[in-house]
Every structure is written in structure tokens, then in C-alpha cells.
């Protein structure tokens, strides 16, 4: 169970990115976060694992207050939260397998990991994760030799290496074509259904929301403007989320 209470983020320079956002996510739910660009979706996801330090409010996960955790406690929390990014954020000059193994960094002996040494089990596990996302044959290629869809699968495999209990996906399909988008979303769905991993996923397209999400929250200018089931988004709600000018497509 993840509970976000009155989460507020004011950037340096006074931009209010999140304004007292509160919501709850039960364990195992697939939550979609929608809203226009700049509405605070990325900030919200990054405040949950404190890649961005929230200004006020609390994030409580499994009874632990993430916002007040010490740096060491924070690392122990982070290693149970996988993260998938819009731009994949792979280390392009490293091999695919190294990128995947880096998901394990929170769990391994720090001294050995600095020398790029991983245990046999971890390497085996990394290969299994790549198998799971269907690119086991690419394991020893450099990450920049892969296509966009393949790179995002590496990103997912990296998150899976953490044995996550929750995955934060920041517009994971925004830079992919519709066919690839569905295949990536299906992997996330599979992880959600089979492994019971909570997924918080920010999305642009409503059809993806309808197809994959259990529940939706919507942000507009840092405010939580909608919380409910995907089917509940009617035309009026849509205009509240995306503004008066917006028109529904698809």
C-alpha cells in the first residue's frame, strides 16, 4: 500500500509543480497517471522515490515514511522500487547485460560492484530477465545498437532485476510507435498481473489507459483533478483534465 499525503513540490524559482496531492494505491494495482505535459506527472513519480526532493507532504509505503528516511534507508527503499523512463536512460556505451545488472547494484557487495564483478546468480538472473522481455540474444551487444523498443525492454529488465514491489513508469511508451507501445505495455501488465507488482504509470493516450489501467488519477497544473476508474472519464471530465480546447481522439 502506497499512500501519498499532501505532496507539494515548489521548484527553485517558485514554480508550483505539485499542489497538496493526496491519493492511495493498494498493493498490486495498475495506476495510470494522466495529464498534459508539464502537469506534474514526472515530478510526482520522482518525488515518490525522492529523485526529486518534495517540499512538503509525505509518501508512506508499506508503513515506512519515505520522505523522512535517512540516505541509507532511502537506498534500501529505492532498491525495491523499479523505475522505467521515457528516454530509457540506458548507459549507451555499456553492454546490455551491464545495463540490466546495474539494477542489482543496491543488493551487491559495493566493493566488488565497483570492479564490475557480479555473482553468477546475478548474471543468470539478468539473462532470465532479458529472456522474459524477449531480447536474450542481444545481451552482449552495446545498448546503443538496439532499437527504441528493444532499449525500453532493457529498461524494464533492469527494473525487474531489483525484484521490485513497485514500478514507477514515467511515460514508458511516449517515444515509441503504437505497436511497440502496446508490446511494452503488455510486459508491464504481465509483471503487474503475474508478480503482483504495483505499477504507477504516467501515460498520454487514453486508449492505453482504458486498456491497461485498473485506476486513474489525473493532474492539471499540479493539482489532482480526477481520481477513479478509466471508464468514468467522460467528455466533461476530459475537458477538466486536458483543458477546454482539447478534443478526444481515439
Amino acid at each position, binding site marked *: 500500500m502506497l499512500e501519498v499525503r499532501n505532496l507539494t513540490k515548489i521548484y527553485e524559482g517558485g514554480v508550483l509543480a505539485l499542489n497538496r496531492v493526496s491519493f492511495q494505491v493498494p498493493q498490486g494495482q495498475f495506476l495510470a497517471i494522466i495529464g498534459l505535459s508539464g502537469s506534474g506527472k514526472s515530478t510526482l513519480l520522482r518525488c515518490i*522515490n525522492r*529523485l526529486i526532493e518534495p517540499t512538503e507532504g509525505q509518501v508512506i509505503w508499506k508503513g515506512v515514511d519515505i520522505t*523522512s528516511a*535517512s540516505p*541509507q*534507508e532511502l*537506498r*534500501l*527503499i*529505492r*532498491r*525495491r*522500487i*523499479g*523505475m522505467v*523512463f521515457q*528516454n*530509457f*536512460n*540506458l*548507459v*549507451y*556505451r*555499456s553492454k546490455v547485460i*551491464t545495463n540490466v545488472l*546495474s*539494477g*542489482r*547494484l*543496491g*543488493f*551487491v*557487495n*559495493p*566493493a566488488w*560492484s*565497483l570492479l*564490475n564483478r557480479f555473482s553468477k546468480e546475478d548474471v543468470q538472473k539478468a539473462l532470465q530477465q532479458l529472456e522474459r522481455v524477449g531480447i536474450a540474444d542481444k545481451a552482449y551487444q552495446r545498448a546503443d545498437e538496439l532499437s527504441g523498443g528493444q532499449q525500453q525492454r532493457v*529498461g524494464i529488465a*533492469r527494473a525487474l*532485476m*531489483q525484484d521490485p514491489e513497485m514500478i*514507477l513508469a514515467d511515460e514508458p511508451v511516449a517515444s515509441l510507435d503504437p505497436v511497440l507501445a502496446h508490446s511494452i505495455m503488455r510486459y508491464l501488465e504481465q509483471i503487474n498481473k503475474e508478480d503482483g507488482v504495483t505499477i504507477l504509470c504516467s501515460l498520454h493516450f487514453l486508449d492505453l489507459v482504458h486498456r491497461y489501467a485498473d485506476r486513474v488519477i489525473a493532474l492539471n497544473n499540479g493539482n489532482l483533478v480526477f481520481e477513479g476508474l478509466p471508464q468514468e472519464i467522460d467528455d466533461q471530465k476530459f475537458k477538466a483534465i486536458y483543458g477546454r480546447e482539447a478534443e478526444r481522439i481515439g
Partner: protein
Amino acid sequence: MEKKNKASLWKSLRLGFAIVAVLVVYAYGFQVTKVDLAEFRKESRQDSRIRVMRALARPDIFEYDQEEFIVFASIYVPCPDQPVQIPPPDPSQPYLVIPAHCGKPNEHIQVEGYNFPPNIKGPIFFVPSSDPNATLALQRGNIETDSQGKFITTIRLPNRPSNEVQYLKVITRRNVGWPRFSQTAKDTWDKIIETIFLALLATTIGTIFSVPLSFFAARNLMKDVKSPLTGISLAALGWPLGIGFGLAVARLVQTFLAQWRGQSLISWLLFVGFALLGMLLLRWAVFDPRHEPDERPLKLLRSLAQMTGLIALVLAFFALSQAGVTVGLSLASHLGSFAFLGNFVAQLSDVMTVLLTPAVALAGGAWLGGIGGQIGTKWNDTLPAGAVRFLNGLLSALAVATLSGFLGWGIGWLYEIKNVAYTLVYPAGAGALLGILLAILTRPKQPLPIGLVIYTITRTILNAVRSIEALIMAIVAVIWVGIGPFAGVLALGLHTIASLAKLYSEQVESILPGPIEAITATGATRLQTIVYAVIPQIIPPYISFTMYRWDINVRMSTIIGFAGGGGIGFLLIQNINLLNYRAASTQMLAIAVVVATMDYLSSVMRERFV
């Protein structure tokens, strides 16, 4: 329309003014740089220019064994009263024929030569003495034989009248055998090798030190490093304490090991034993993130074990360097012509001994400073705001007082001020006030951008060092370690540290932030993030810049000798000052070849790596 005209008029006026201003600037430039084409065209200048250019065009690289022919012919100046008897020449040898046999002073007479080697040149002399081998000989011109070994020339007799017989002398030289390298070429070879290795060592030293420095000088890595005042103050207090502790440990360890100096077996055993002990202790003591955090007593025990393990490692390293010196020296005396290898081992171990003490001191400082920072941050997080404010005042006063006390002590040492009130009491008092002011001005729990402060300090120092040209650093280094290539290594190395650290840090600043974010999100430590997200991105540009810098250093090391820094420049400036342009030309040629080769090699290697 009117307005537009006005604007264009104004525009052309401005342009005209700008042109006049530029002309004035260049006129003044001509004046101060003393551009003087008349001097340039002067006859004497032209002559010396041509002479030097011709010398430069004939670098002194090869030399031959030479065969010398000296041929005499007797002559009377002026003509004696009786006709003279000239013995007939030996036609199997080169010989001279003077049809007139005699002449008046200053008269032009014809001289013929036969049986000389073909196509050679040589001077012709008048020997004003009855002894043909007299040292004094007046050169009268040069001869050049044709393809039959024959020449005919006309010389002017000198004003040396005598009743005795006098002589004409022709000296010709011929190269025989195969060409071999001249002494200049051999010296140049020695020095160019020295130059290349000078550049290599300077680049290596520079790279080793500038890589860690470049992280501190990278804005994107440092801007997020923030800490509350409590943490900063405690860390600032921990650093000097830790450095003192490290120095004490290093000194103790060295005195402990000194009793076995020269006995390499014992040193080796000590090295292996303490290395194992240290590794085992650290293996147990370093927090393994696979487990949950420890309880308090175990945590303390682990810290203690960490410290003991680190000290054991320090002991092991000192033992290793001691053993290395002994082994190296004994190798040097047994290896014969490979003695330089033994010497290298000994020198390297000596360098290790020299570097270990500051390294241990720094490690001690980092360790205690880190602990201080952690404790401070913890207090800052757990204590109420009022208590934090009070603590901040106290600790920052103490910290700034300590730092300014050290600063005062340093200034006192430099300027030999003996008055303790000026060097210690006043600076410390002022520091304490400053610290309290700092605590009052900042909000109690506000995180301060300490990373940016470190960044700014590092940048400033790097810029200051970089602005001093390596040639000038060489002058200082020569005073320090004496004339020779080692001074050049130090000077170039220091300059390389500053410039590479800047270039490197700019590369760090231009890396993609995404991977850092992703690795941080996996729960990796800061160090792991650097190793996995930063380093893979910066390795290609780092290699490229290191190659480029080696290239620059080779070029610099060719002239660092001008200031006494060793290498080929030393030879070059000597030969230029001695007006020995043919030798200087050899050295310039060597420099050109080496620089061009380095340029080519570095571009090939950069292409391969990047």
C-alpha cells in the same frame, strides 16, 4: 522616409568610424611591434639570413671518414735574379703546375692542378715560409676539379716578398667508406628519447591526478551535494583531526617498519600478512547491503574493525614499498645492462613511500570528516530546530575558528611572524565570530550548497595554476630539483593536471543526466552511480583528451629544455647560442619528425577509441 535616411546615414557614419578606429589600432600595433621593412631588406641581414638558411638546410646527421690530399708547389715572390730550377712533378701523384714559377706581390698568376680526384673542392693557400708545413697559411681562394681531376685557377699573390722559396698549398678532402651517424645525430637521438618519455611521464602524472579532480570541478555532479550547517561544521572539524590522525598513523607505521629496513623477506611477509588481515577485517566490516542495517553495538564494532583493517592495509602498503626499494636496489646491482629496471622498481617504491603519507593523511581526513558529516546530518534531522540553531552556532564557530587558525599559522610560517596573537588568537577569534554569523544568517535546518563551494574553490585553483605557463613552472622546478628532465616532468605534470582536469570536467558536465537518474533510482550508492552511469560515458572523451594532451606535452617538452627542464630543447638552445646552426637544424628536424608522428598516432588512436 526621412527617418529611414537618417538611420542609414547614422549607420554609415558608424561604419566609417569603426574603420578609422581599426586602422588606428593597427597603426599603433605596427608602432609597438617595431615593424621595419628597411631593416628586413638590408644587405647584411640578407647575407646572414641566407647563411643561416643554408646551414639549416644541411642538418648535421651523417659523417664520413675522410681522405686528405695536400699538394705543394714552390714559388718565388718576387722573381729571383737567376732563373729557378723546379723539380719535375711526379705524375703518379696529384701535382700543381705554376707556369710562371714566380711573381710580384699582388700579381695575379695562373695555377694548374692535375691528377686530383675528380669533382672535389678545396682551399688553396699561400705558405709564406720556406718550410711548406708551417702553420701560417693564407687562403687565396677555392679550387674545384673537373671530371678528369684537373683544375685551372688564378690567384692573387700576397704582399710577402722573400728571397727564400715559398709555397702554394692545396688541400682537398674526399669522403671514403659508408656514411655513419655524426656525434650530433647521436646526441639528438638520446635527447629526443628523453623528450618523449618526459612527455609520457608528465601526461601520466597529470592524468592520475586530474581524473578525481575533474569530478570536483564538474558542476552537474557537485550542485546537488548539499548538507546542513551542522554536518558541514562537524565534517570541517573532522578533516583536520583525521589528517592529524592519518599523519600520526603513517609516522608510527614507518618507525615500526624501519627496524626491518633492508631485509626484504621480512618486509614481504609483513606485506602479505597485514594485507590479508586488512582484507579479512574489511570484508567483515564493510556494510553489505544484502543485510538489514545493524544494531548499535554491532555497528560500533564494525566501525572499529574498519579502522583496524584500514590501518593494517596502510602497514601492508608501507611494507610493500619498503620491500620494493630493497628488491629494486638489489636487482639494479645484479641485472647488468638492465639495471634501469631494478632502478625503476626502487624509484617507484620510493615514490609510493612518499605518496603514502599524504594519501593516509587524506584518507584519515575523509574518514573522520565523513563520520562528522553523518553525525551532524543526523543531529540536524532528529533534534528540534532550537537545539539545532544553538548547535550550529557552537559548531560552526568552532569549525571556522579552527580553519582560520590553521590559515593564520600557515601565513605566520610563510612570513616568519613569531607573534602568536597575530597568527593564532586573532584569526581564530575572527573565525569564531564569522562562524556564529554564518549560523545566524542561515536557517537552522536549511541544506547549504557545499558542493558548489567545493566546485568553485577547485575551479579557481585550477584556473590559477593553468594560467602559469609550463615554461615558467619549469624555472621553479629547476630551482627545486635541479636542471634536468625531472624538473621538466614536474613542470609539465603540474600544468597537465590543471588543464586536463578542466577539459575532463567539461566532459563530465556534458554527459546525459538520464543514466545517473536511473542508476540512483536502483538504490545504488553515489560511488556506484559514478562508476556505472558517469564513467562509461566519459571514458572515450577522457582517452581522447589524454592523447591530445600527450601530443601537446611532446611539443612542450621540446622547448621545456630552454628553461633547464631537460629534453631536446636543452641541446637546441645551446646550439643556437653557439651559432652552430647545422646541429640546431638536426634537432629541429628531430622535433618535427617526432611531433608529426605523435600527431598522426594520436589521431589514429583517437579515431579507434572514440
